């Protein structure tokens, strides 16, 4: 990096974001935010009937990302069914989850059409801005 004129670069892949930036002359800062904590973990049978395969195949497809930092909730309350599960079709207006930030419960819409093929976040888990939440085909 030092040999180049780069001062900053960022890689984002599978929920892991690595950002390296050079501030001032010598100093190199490496900021790898919390994603490490939830880099692709095999999903326990959390998503009940339609549990995703433990090793998710590298699928082509679109993802629904978190528009904010917060806590991910897959259902409106602990004892109600999830907004969506694998196999459900969604459209622009479908509510897929809630992301809570500062106790504002934000209902997140799919903003795209297709079929949910994978749920990428776990109920109650913290999520970052731009983190993929669902894979859609």
């Amino acid at each position, binding site marked *: 990096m030092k040999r180049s004129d780069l001062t900053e670069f960022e890689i984002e892949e599978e929920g892991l974001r690595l950002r390296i930036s050079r501030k001032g002359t010598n100093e190199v800062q490496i900021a790898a935010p919390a994603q490490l904590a939830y880099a692709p973990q095999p999903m326990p049978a959390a998503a009940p009937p339609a549990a995703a395969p433990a090793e998710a195949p590298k699928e082509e497809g679109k993802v629904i990302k978190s*528009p904010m930092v917060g*806590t991910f909730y897959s259902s409106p309350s602990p004892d109600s069914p999830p907004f969506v599960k694998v196999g459900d079709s969604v459209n622009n207006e479908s509510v897929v989850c809630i992301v809570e*930030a*500062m*106790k*504002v*419960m*934000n*209902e997140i819409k799919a903003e795209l059409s297709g079929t949910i093929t994978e749920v990428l976040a776990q109920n109650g888990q*913290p999520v970052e801005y731009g983190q993929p939440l669902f894979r859609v085909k």
Partner: protein
Amino acid sequence: MSQTDVTILQSLLTAKDDFVSGNDLAQQLGISRVGVWARLEKLRESGFVVEAVRHRGYRLMEEPRRLNEPLLLAYLASAESQVPVFFHETLDSTNSEAERRLANGQTAPFVVVSGSQTRGRGRLGRRWYSPDEGNLYISFAFRPETNHARMQAITIWLGLTVCHYLREVHQLPVQIKWPNDLIINNRKVAGMLTEARIDADRTRDLVFGLGLNVSGKLSEWPLEVAEIATTLSEHAPSVLSINNLAADLIKRCTDAYQSFIESRHLPQMLELWQQYDAFDQRVIRAEYRGKMIEGVAGGIDERGALKVNLDNEQQITVNSGEVTIGTSAWAQQRAAEPANGLDPK
């Protein structure tokens, strides 16, 4: 509900301890004196105590203890509140009703109040105990149509607005517990639930719900609620009018929303938080990036996130999840130390 009742009540409220003559009322309303008398009889049936003295007129001695539509509207008119208010004797939940009205295209802002709730809810579908007498259930609906990041601190700001009002106007020792509970002596006196719908990066609409324990009888509440709750009346020096409270809060919160959306709230938000923060400099336990951490609470930042000072002198901010009082030995010791260089300022 008749507008006549609202006008009569408004005259009686304005007169306070003075009498309002039946003649004046009759003239103002364009009805006969007998007509006025008949309306007052009706009001008495709904819990008003009105004194009538020959040659002097009428005087309001006592208000109903329940939420009462004409009285609420009379107080709202006195407070010069312009926002439309939808009144219900009972509802599943005021937030749900507000959301239905938004979905049906109702112009915002507007307010939904209810005398009771059958499915009052808190965060994550938790039940909010909603008996039908002595408590307030109010929801405010807005269409911010702005980036959701700008709306993050709205619960904090409106909660502070309610807290400030109760302290300033009613001398109640209310504190705010990050981010959305109002407490008196560590017992919950109000809860807030904000629900929003996001389109891409914009907040399409948002409902702020407030449940306030005013004068309910704790002894009749379920034990698990009564143990952690309190009511305003238990701490109030004088009798509180639930209808007056409702009207004042409607006025204050809709004004506060306006200043928030115009970004005029910041200096006051940070200042009020310092004054009323229940966690200030206390050791708290919170979830941070998937792990439980303990640290010393040091107020909020401009987005409303809680600042926490860790033992390695690092400061983090928490913006979601649960926060409780911490328990570790380190944390206790740290909290006991006087100004220790960890001060966020």
